[in-house]
């Protein structure tokens, strides 16, 4: 268990460093589901759904969730500290020393490149959580409806998810 928690700590730090403005879902899917099998697709869907309905940076709470799965409350603490500690320290460091970084074009283009890849990777995660091979016609309609509602009317994911859960239970 200790080895798993150390690996989770390292992976959480990796994920936090590789995420610029979104994309952590894709990395949790790759590391937590595909590579380590710490959780499965159903578990990831459950925590992402719950995360979207929770305030704060709850998608990052997937590290807490995986940590709990591996080692109870101590594991949850390891996952949480791992995912937040480095960005937290960098933020303080930047506030204190790097006022010029805001206008740096090299940093801006690096972030733009990472952001473009994050968008593609997050889209790939959507196809990871849903079982594309066994998808029903009504699920495609619901997914497209949820996509449109989220983009066009910027509906809070909480309400969109609640509506989808009810539709699923009725159908």
């Amino acid at each position, binding site marked *: 268990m200790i080895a798993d928690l150390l690996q989770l700590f390292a992976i959480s730090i990796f994920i936090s460093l590789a995420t610029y403005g*979104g994309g952590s879902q894709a990395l949790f899917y790759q590391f937590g589901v595909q590579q380590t099998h710490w959780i499965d697709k159903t578990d990831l869907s459950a925590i992402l759904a719950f995360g979207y309905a929770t305030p704060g940076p709850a998608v990052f709470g997937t590290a807490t969730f995986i940590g709990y799965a591996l080692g109870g409350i101590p594991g949850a603490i390891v996952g949480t500290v791992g995912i937040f500690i480095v960005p937290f320290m960098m933020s303080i460091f930047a506030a204190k020393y790097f006022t010029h970084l805001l206008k740096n074009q090299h940093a801006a283009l690096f972030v733009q490149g990472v952001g473009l890849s994050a968008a593609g990777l997050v889209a790939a995660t959507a196809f990871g959580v849903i079982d594309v091979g066994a998808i029903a016609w009504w699920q495609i309609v619901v997914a497209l409806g949820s996509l449109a509602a989220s983009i066009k009317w910027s509906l809070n994911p909480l309400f969109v998810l609640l509506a989808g859960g009810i539709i699923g239970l009725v159908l």
Partner: protein
Amino acid sequence: MNYVELIGVFAKTGASAFGGWSTTALLLEKELVENRKLLEPHDIKGATTYAQILPGATQVSIVANVGYRLHGFVGACMATATYLLPSIGLITLFAIAYFHFADNTSNLMVHMDGLVAVLAGVILANAYKIGSKHTTKAWLWMLIVLAFVLKLWLGVNALLIIVMFGLSGLILSWTSARRILK
């Protein structure tokens, strides 16, 4: 602002910050700039701009930065811990319930095909929003599709894709070709 007030402000913000980092920035601006007049609008704007060029959770970067401006390192620690407490507390409770009643939860998820379909739509919308923020030119959507194909169909490591795209941006920034991005 004393530490008790600081804890109150950030815990309240953490409990009501639904809908991404912009809500957090707005709530902090209302509480610390408009109501208490402890900071200037440019403090929040600076914290927000920094947060977007730093890795990790944007909200946490904003909160750490604002906490630091209020009370130095201790303020940053207290602000971040109290801001995270509501969401991480809820997720821990969810994890306890989920894994304690694992069999029941798995059965429940079988009936949650609708929820999974909606989740896929919400994640795709999230991808679109991230993409919109970074596509200064329409053709850059093709790079997003490239990342999507590399991951989903070719199974390339996500971290490798991120590093490749980030470094490409960095290399372009040193050449005159950077104009094609603007």
